[in-house]
């Protein structure tokens, strides 16, 4: 009895960890397992193992066009938001100007506001401007909420950058442009890359704001939502699982590259 108690107290943190990760990963595991389900109509009951869904991920009507839309919107919104957000981050992180403190606060607002409110008010604006809802209104909406996250991420990186490194570059005959190109940008780049990944996953994932401003355009989250009631095809699980592993791959690759850069080999 005593040894059991001791074992328990020694391994408590491990048990806790296993329970924690189980809780976090059960939905992911469930999605993955059911991507192999030989389903009919509704993918809720296990009916047997098959590779058919993975062999033919576009085998269900509309799922791949929706995925394509999400990809296109995600890449475009990420591209625009990353450029704009990085420029804002440099302005806020490097220069003193009138209204900087206010801008610093305002930039947080889109992150703090409820998505429902943002989505609804964007819809009002688009309707008042007489814009046709669809692909481009979704892109505009996504850029809007991604910028804040990019600014915050990149700004943190700039703040951690020792200004003496840029001074050293200038001291060593690099003019302003060369200093940015050779020292500032390479050192801030990991932050910008992280911000871009974050922006893409936020955009790819978004349902609420998109739902207000999509018109007849269907993105992947919208597809999943509308089909969840009637029975979601296992292809959605296939795409979800694939996205999960892709993200995992990027993170692991990023860490390996990061380590190599640190070790300097």
């Amino acid at each position, binding site marked *: 009895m005593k040894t059991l108690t001791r074992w328990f107290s020694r391994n408590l943190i491990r048990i806790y960890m296993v329970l924690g990760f189980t809780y976090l990963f059960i939905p992911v595991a469930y999605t993955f397992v059911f991507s192999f389900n030989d389903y009919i109509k509704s993918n809720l009951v296990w009916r047997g193992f098959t590779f058919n869904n993975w062999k033919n991920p576009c085998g269900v009507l509309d799922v791949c066009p929706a995925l394509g839309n999400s990809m296109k919107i995600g890449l475009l919104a990420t591209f625009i938001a990353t450029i704009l957000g990085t420029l804002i981050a440099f302005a806020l992180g490097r220069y003193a100007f009138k209204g900087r403190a206010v801008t610093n606060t305002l930039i947080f607002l889109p992150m703090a506001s409820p998505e429902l409110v943002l989505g609804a008010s964007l819809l009002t604006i688009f309707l008042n401007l007489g814009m046709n809802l669809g692909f481009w209104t979704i892109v505009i909406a996504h850029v809007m909420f991604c910028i804040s996250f990019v600014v915050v991420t990149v700004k943190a990186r700039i703040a951690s950058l020792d200004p003496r490194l840029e*001074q050293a570059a200038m*001291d*060593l*005959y*690099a003019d302003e442009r060369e200093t940015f190109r050779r020292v500032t940008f390479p050192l801030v780049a990991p932050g910008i890359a992280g911000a871009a990944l974050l922006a893409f996953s936020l955009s790819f994932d978004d349902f609420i704001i998109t739902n207000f401003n999509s018109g007849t355009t269907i993105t992947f989250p919208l597809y999943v939502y509308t089909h969840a009631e009637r029975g979601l095809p296992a292809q959605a699980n296939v795409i979800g699982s694939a996205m999960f592993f892709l993200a995992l791959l990027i993170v692991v690759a990023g860490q390996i590259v990061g380590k190599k850069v640190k*070790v300097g080999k």
Partner: protein
Amino acid sequence: MADASTSAKGDLKLTNLTKSYGEFKAVDDLSLVIPEGSFFALLGPSGCGKTTTLRMIAGLEEPTSGKISIGATDITDKRPYQRPVNTVFQNYALFPHLTIFENIAFGLRRRGIKDVKEQVDKVLNLVELPHLADRKPTQLSGGQQQRIAVARAIVNRPALLLLDEPLGALDLKLRRQMQIELKWIQTEVGLTFVHVTHDQEEAMTMADTIAVMNEGRIEQMGSPAELYDNPKTAFVANFLGQSNLIEGSIVDSDGDYHVVDLHGQKAKVLKSRTHSKNNSVLYAIRPEKLRIDLDNQSRPGNRFTGGRIVDVSYIGVSTQYQVEMPWKQEIMVFEQNDDGVPPLDKGDEVTLSWEPSFSFALDGAQDATAGSEVNPEEE
């Protein structure tokens, strides 16, 4: 990029240089000439304006007024990359994303120099770290990073090398070693070094000329020996080493000497070492210049009688005494432990004696503690 100003040569000349932040003057009307090829130290406590002066010379700070020139070339309004000046930064500021080789090659490449590899290899050999060329800065020890920072600057053969507290982050033993090494490198490459530090020992070990700075101004400038033996202000007397400053007044003259009355006891001081506008003086004598004896043994020179030891600290190479004088002031005495005689005891009645030519006298109107309460190790 390489215009006439980046190849300027000659003495560094600062003329009425001032840097104000609102009401506060970090550097106040500073003028000085640093001869080409010298090892010059700006010494002072933190906040005295020495780093601001250095940054203005580097072009990283804009002077409020005044002029900076090298030889005949005015560089006051030049950008940092347009000056023949390189800096060794306090925390080295090595580029973390570049290898040691590329760090050192940085300045050469920006100026479009051809034989980069040859020059980098040469300077790596000079600092004795050729095997580290392919490493990244974070893989190096503090001492190695320090040497690479020096190499990265001197490879450009600037007219002027600025060193901003270059040894501050190293431990004492390594600092001593680097002091000797830096001095050697300076002699080897023959460049002008301007060295900013709060560490008086560091300044005295390396520099030919030291300017002691206080509150944005130069208190006194001279060779280490001049500053130590004949300081002109209480600040310099206290900041460089330690001094016993005793209030007194000049009462008589005796050849080259003034005769000073110190609380009823007479002492002499060289007229050439007296820096007072009137008869009121602070008579000064360094602790190691004093000899301590049990009562009234006859020794040549001046003497104080009636002292009583109130504290003894044995520190191996020497013994430090605090001696209370009849006028209640405590005088510090450092006695070399070179005679095999055991230290005196607390409570002993003693006589202090000294060679009068070793003493100096300062203006009596000054605060006798100026420069002594600043902790030089504090940043």
